[in-house]
């Protein structure tokens, strides 16, 4: 086996799915601040993606908005576009996610399939594609954005919990498969983070957080920035909880 790279190659690019706003946008900005070229993937919110790119460029980084629905079409085509525009994808952050909540007894197949399809299956397909250049390069970083929901119960989100717990399981096994090629695979598990998805959080939920406050998207960005860094080269297969102590 060729020597592993211990330092990120020069034009290494990070592809962040669902990065037009919220946690994805914060991750994109954190990676750009750490020197990654960043592909800001979006499905429908072109304006948000462009705003993320603009924020990165204003901070002195380099990024491009890249359209693509991760649940549809061919991941290799998306990767080709990113490589042509920025550089080889040596970091992938599977962040794109959806919810379709309901008590399990009332959750229909469509809501189940939609959430598993976007949050888990699409992340697998993207991961499979991303590993190809990474194992050849002897360097790669994959970070899956999971959730405290999955390891913990959350009534009304059986589909979401299954997908996120599945992501954590996938993270561990894929990490074990490619570790000897210098490719790390980790997950972050945000708790309650201030985004559109949590804006109607009841007070009782806050009481369940030891820190007694919701997190900021930047808290998650910082965790991903670390896991994608050269400093984290020996960290793989793990899940970093960013949850104010909820899972403690």
């Amino acid at each position, binding site marked *: 086996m060729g020597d592993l790279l211990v330092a990120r190659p020069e034009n290494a690019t990070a592809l962040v799915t669902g990065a037009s706003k919220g946690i994805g946008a914060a991750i994109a900005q954190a990676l750009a601040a750490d020197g990654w070229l960043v592909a800001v993937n979006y499905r429908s919110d072109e304006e948000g993606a462009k705003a993320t790119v603009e924020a990165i460029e204003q901070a002195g980084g380099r990024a491009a908005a890249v359209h693509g629905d991760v649940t549809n079409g061919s991941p290799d085509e998306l990767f080709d576009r990113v490589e042509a525009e920025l550089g080889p994808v040596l970091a992938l952050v599977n962040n794109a996610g959806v919810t379709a909540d309901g008590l399990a007894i009332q959750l229909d197949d469509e809501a189940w399939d939609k959430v598993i399809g976007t949050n888990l299956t699409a992340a697998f397909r993207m991961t499979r594609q991303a590993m*190809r250049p990474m*194992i050849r390069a002897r360097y790669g970083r994959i970070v899956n954005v999971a959730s405290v929901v999955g390891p913990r119960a959350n009534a009304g989100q059986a589909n979401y919990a299954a997908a996120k717990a599945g992501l954590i399981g996938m993270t561990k096994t894929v990490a074990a498969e*490619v570790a000897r090629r210098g490719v790390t695979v980790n997950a972050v598990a945000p708790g309650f983070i201030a985004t559109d998805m949590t804006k109607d959080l009841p007070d009782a939920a806050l009481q369940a957080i030891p820190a007694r406050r919701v997190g900021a998207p930047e808290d998650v960005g910082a965790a991903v920035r670390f896991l994608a860094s050269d400093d984290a080269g020996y960290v793989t297969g793990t899940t970093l909880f960013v949850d104010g102590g909820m899972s403690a």
Partner: protein
Amino acid sequence: MAATITPEAVEKTVYGALPQFGVDESQISRDATFEELDVDSLDLAELSQIIEDEYGVQLKGDDVGKIKTVGDAIDLVVSRAG
């Protein structure tokens, strides 16, 4: 454009790729088994990728599971041509 598949060309590609996985060039022959060469499943997956990039021939996990020797790998790729 995918390269033309001939047994000689595929042999050259495979022989050229194996040292990337730590294989000693002097040990490479058609009869050598991947086990003897200490080429593991991830190495074979990467070799499949090199072959796919070069010749456009996709080898799946099932295919790769059946091959035992360097010669098996070359023959499999050649048999998929055309």
